[in-house]
């Protein structure tokens, strides 16, 4: 089926996310206006106005009441989802690279870039204690001295955060003690994205080293590798079928005249278990920066460097296809 093309951003997409039910799609880009869309028809529901720089990350809590965005304007902001009104603003000393709500939605996390002489930090707030936000006194500040955080998500049950780093490290942090629990180095280059499977027992990482990898959430044991020839910017696990989807492509700065064919800007479908590629979906005119499965697994969306979001519904052939074993 022909995908819906959403052109609501002037610049490259940085992250897209569905809410839990999958009726809304949240997107942010290098322009300063994060959007929210109806996933059913691609109509724009609204924008979150206020940021003054590229927005690197966006997250929505489990009951779709609040939205969180992090930006290069040195703020992380909390929005009311239904009205689009800004609720809170956290001022930081450098760009906010990643942000997220915990499972319960009560704990907030964001990380900052190690630029402008600032160190990379992870900050945790408990929204139940209003003083923490008001006085900008986080519940916990974890310095990240070794390598800066390039991707981070809350683990299951508000207990852990999993961070991916510029040097390829993946670290599991205990949020009660503020301690490192596991640290693995399976990727050789920067981790661009981390996404959980639906039940959060495993997660997939996308790396600049041209691979995506699957890990056990508890132990950070490496389980599978999905290989491509291009940097992988984003990867997601299907909630319905044993499939994963990878998005990426040649970085625009690496090739002067990148034709779409050399760049390999296709989204790639792999079998989750056998790690065999079984399909490619063309469309973007630049690298894919972010992908997300529709929560029912019947479609997916991708956001590209070209400024478009493409909303795909899978054909019936997709559901009929199976690898023999």
């Amino acid at each position, binding site marked *: 089926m022909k995908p819906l093309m959403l052109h609501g951003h002037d610049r490259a997409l940085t992250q897209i996310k569905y809410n839990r039910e999958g009726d809304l799609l949240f997107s942010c880009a290098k322009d300063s206006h994060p959007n929210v869309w109806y996933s059913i028809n691609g109509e724009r529901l609204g924008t979150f106005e206020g940021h003054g720089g590229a927005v690197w990350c966006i997250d929505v809590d489990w009951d779709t009441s609040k939205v969180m965005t992090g930006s290069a304007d040195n703020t992380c902001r909390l929005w009311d989802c239904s009205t689009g009104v800004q609720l809170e603003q956290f001022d930081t000393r450098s760009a906010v690279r990643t942000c997220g709500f915990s499972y319960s939605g009560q704990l907030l996390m964001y990380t900052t870039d190690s630029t402008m002489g600032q160190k990379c930090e992870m900050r945790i707030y408990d929204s139940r204690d209003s003083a923490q936000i008001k006085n900008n006194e986080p519940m916990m500040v974890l310095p990240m001295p070794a390598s800066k955080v390039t991707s981070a998500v809350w683990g299951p*049950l508000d207990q852990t955060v999993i961070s991916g780093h510029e040097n390829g490290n993946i670290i599991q942090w205990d949020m009660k003690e503020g301690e490192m629990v596991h640290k693995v180095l399976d990727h050789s280059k920067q981790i661009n994205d981390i996404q959980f499977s639906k039940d959060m027992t495993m997660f997939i990482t996308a790396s600049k080293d041209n691979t995506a990898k699957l890990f*056990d959430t508890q132990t950070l044991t490496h389980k599978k590798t999905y290989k491509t*020839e291009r940097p992988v910017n984003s990867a997601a696990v299907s909630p319905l079928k044993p499939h994963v989807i990878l998005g990426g492509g040649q970085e625009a700065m690496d090739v002067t005249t990148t034709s779409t064919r050399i760049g390999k800007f296709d989204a790639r479908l792999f079998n989750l278990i056998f790690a065999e590629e079984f399909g490619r979906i063309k469309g973007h005119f630049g690298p894919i920066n972010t992908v997300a499965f529709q929560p029912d697994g019947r479609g997916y969306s991708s956001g590209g460097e070209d400024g478009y979001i493409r909303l795909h519904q899978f054909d019936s052939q997709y559901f009929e296809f199976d*690898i023999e*074993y």
Partner: protein
Amino acid sequence: MAGDEDQGWQQETSRKSRREQRRDDNDYDDDEPDFNDPPSYVDDIDDEELLGDLLKRRPKETDGIESVIVVDNVPCVGAERLDKLQNVIRKIFNKFGKIQTEHFPKESDGKTKGYIFLEYQSPEEALEAVKNTNGYKLDRQHTFIVNMFSDFEKYAAVTEEWEQPEIQPYKDHGNLLHWLLDPHDYDQFSVIYEGGDRTAIITNSVPEPTVLEERPRWTETYVRWSPKGTLLATFHQRGIALWGGETFKQISRFSHTGVQLIDFSPCEKYLVSFSPVPDNRDDPQAVIIWDIRSGMKKRGFHCENASVWPIFKWSHDGRYFARMASDSISVYETPSFGLLDKKSIKVQNLQEFMWSPSDNMLAYWRPGEGDRPAAVTLMKIPSRDAVCVKNFFQVADIKMHWQRSGDHLCVKVDRFKTKKEEKDGVKYLGITHNFSIFRIREKEIPVDTVDVKAENIMAFAWEPVGTKFAFIHGEAPRICVSFYNIKKAGHVEHLNTLEKRQANHLFWSPNGRFIVLAGLRTMSGVLEFVDTLDMTVMATTEHFMASDVEWDPTGRYVATAVSYWAYKVDNAYWLWNFQGKILHKQQMEKFCQILWRPRPPSLLTPEHITEIKKNMKKYNARFAVEDKMRESKVSKEQIEARKLMNEEWNTWRAQCAAHYASEKEERLALRRGIDTDDIEGHVENFEEETIEFLVKVEETILDE
């Protein structure tokens, strides 16, 4: 204590004795001091220690010998003509330095003995004189033999008896043709990847190629197979190494510093190597010809210009090799490595020459000059009979193409209408092309001219086995590929012209009939597989940005490659069958080069081959079964592997599921008791919401 006393006493006595002596001497001569050693003095210092530096400079009997040369075969003259001879000698030998002394030994009757001694100022001058005058032809009877005088001892010491050289132990390299014994007749190829750091030999097995040998830093630049595939040559700063046999052991090494290019003789007997390292004038090193079996250097050559490689072209049987010099072709013969008949073949304004691929025959051409037309000549070697000379008028350029069987020679002639002399050379206007086909096997070599109404011919290729030829012509985007066939009695038939193609290279199957039209590099890797029997295009496909196409030696497979040397991303080689069906895609980090291992010519007789062709169906069936079995074995293995993977996966997922289930209570607690494990799982919490979308706008004009 006792020892000290002893010494003290001794010194005392020696002092005393000296004093006594002095007193004695004074008695005789007061002015002369006494230098004599005391009687008790033990002389334990030898001269060497005392004045070694002086001794080293002590004149020796042989001093000056190094500057002396002996000239033999000098005319024997009487006293009356001695002056004249001396003048001649001085004139010749004064070029290398001033002659210090000369000695003309004489017989008792006053005639010179026929040899002379000359002394130069330095051994260097003497050496230079020897190098340059040894073998100097004074006249018909007298050729100088010049030697260093110091070498005479060496030559004198040669024993009269001939000593048999020690027999070198035979080195068994195993069966060098081992790869031909493969029961499945799989072919091999070499690949270089990781930007040249790794080299591997791969067997093109069905259904997946298998790596046979893989070594890091096997070569420093690239590799080459010998023409029959026996040996693999690797390049190193210090020379060439050859590898072969079952496990690719080193067979031999040729030390040639800075070697860049090599060439094998077709018989695999000799290796030609080229190095741009500055040459020694007296000992040519730029191009060296080696004997592969013995590892001996056969001859070195100077080389001013290596832009044309191979510099030496070998005749098909390796008996002769030739190079182009200014206005001549120098043909050398093996195994003597001397110039054939001691003289080059003079050709005024020679442009190009080529050996016939099947006979010892040369083809060369020269352009016209003034009223003289341009000419293509066929010449037999070693007789130097010009068997055919064909003149062409108004020639701008000529290209020669031999058919591999040597039956035909195609000469592409570019003719001009008008010629303009310009500052930067001659400019030709109104160029037309035609082909002249020389039928070599027929009496007196008839030549037929094929007029092609084609412009801008880019590539020409003979069918290696058969009588067809193909060429690419036209200007982009109207590029065409035309096919012609040579029939009996010189009738040339136009088979077909494929129009508007993306092609700049032609690759015939080594067995003929099939051809790949390729648009390499700038044409982004478009491939077309054509069967020229009925001129059907079997497949039109693409290997994006492909830089190379290589047929395997049997004509069953084609490899296409995107080399790191040409293009920096997506370096890979792909294998196709001859029909253009993709069989295997192999991505490789910084992949550089793929080369099929050549095969020697088949040992089967023509009768044998016809018989096999006749029974093709029978063999077909057998091999089809074998292939199927191998494939099913692999797919079975793959399915087995998947099954195993799946089992492991399920075990792990079961653990995950159990863990997930055990945390259900905690999850509920964190989300206000709402079960969010499934989207549909908490219907009671659904909020009904009505959203209105604009679906369609319809305008209906109502009648008033």
